């Protein structure tokens, strides 16, 4: 197995600014393990760069951050990186996590049909709340943390060698924990709950649940 894996981190609007900042935490986690990260940040999150690196490295794991739709994942400035019916065979023999809207709806199952080991993502829009006062320091934003930390737990668990099923359950439990916290403590914001629930409802995993990156 190639121990390098790509992470796309487009950064061209408020949403991708936050996803990019929180995605960098995964790079730190990976760098503390025996994995190496191919960081496709900003303009590097383009189709040519992505396809070239994936073909050259043949990584076992790929993480996408950014915007998406039912049948596609996008990179910097919403350039299409992978689209069902166009180039989803690039995902063959790989584990994919897409922190992106909707792509688990069609691209997920289609990529598994074309040989991806597993595709985990969201079947509808991924929603998060944040505090604009922390825009220059997104990792310190406690509101955004309630949404983005559970997502990172999925990747952290995979990096540690756990299988998809275990990682998926850990991430779901983290969302539920934050949901319960948001509606049951005095200092919390209960208006967050509906969006955490929405993400939990749409968090979806297709393919082999027993596979891990260490297999």
């Amino acid at each position: 197995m190639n121990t390098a894996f790509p992470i796309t981190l487009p950064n061209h609007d408020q949403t991708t600014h936050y996803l990019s900042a929180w995605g960098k935490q995964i790079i730190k986690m990976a760098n503390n393990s025996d994995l190496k990260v191919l960081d496709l940040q900003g303009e590097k999150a383009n189709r040519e760069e992505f396809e070239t690196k994936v073909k050259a490295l043949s990584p076992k794991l790929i993480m996408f951050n950014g915007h998406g739709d039912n049948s596609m994942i996008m990179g910097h400035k919403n350039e299409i990186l992978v689209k069902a019916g166009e180039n989803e065979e690039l995902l063959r023999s790989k584990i994919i996590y897409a922190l992106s809207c909707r792509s688990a709806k069609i691209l997920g199952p289609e990529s598994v049909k074309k040989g991806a080991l597993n595709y985990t993502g969201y079947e509808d829009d991924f929603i998060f709340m944040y505090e604009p006062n922390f825009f220059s320091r997104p990792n310190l934003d406690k509101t955004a943390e309630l949404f983005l930390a559970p997502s990172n737990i999925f990747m952290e668990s995979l990096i540690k060698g756990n299988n998809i099923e275990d990682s998926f359950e850990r991430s779901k439990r983290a969302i539920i924990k934050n949901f319960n916290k948001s509606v049951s403590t005095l200092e919390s914001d209960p208006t967050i709950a509906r969006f955490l629930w929405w993400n939990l409802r749409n968090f979806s995993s297709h393919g082999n649940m027993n596979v891990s990156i260490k297999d």
Partner: protein
Amino acid sequence: MSEQISEEIKELIIARLDAIPSNKKISIGGYGDFTKDQLIEGVKTGSEVGKKIIEIELEFLRAMKQGVINP
């Protein structure tokens, strides 16, 4: 979402959105980033993001009613 939304339901959703703290924004995927006032305006005018937020609110309320969610 094709179902017809009554004015009473819209008022309920607007009241729920109004409870969101003013110092927070909501990122709704490809729709963009919104303050609560922008979402309320979207519900009132029937914009695409307004329809989306109505869908989310109604599904959340239904899930609560059905006991899928036990806060």
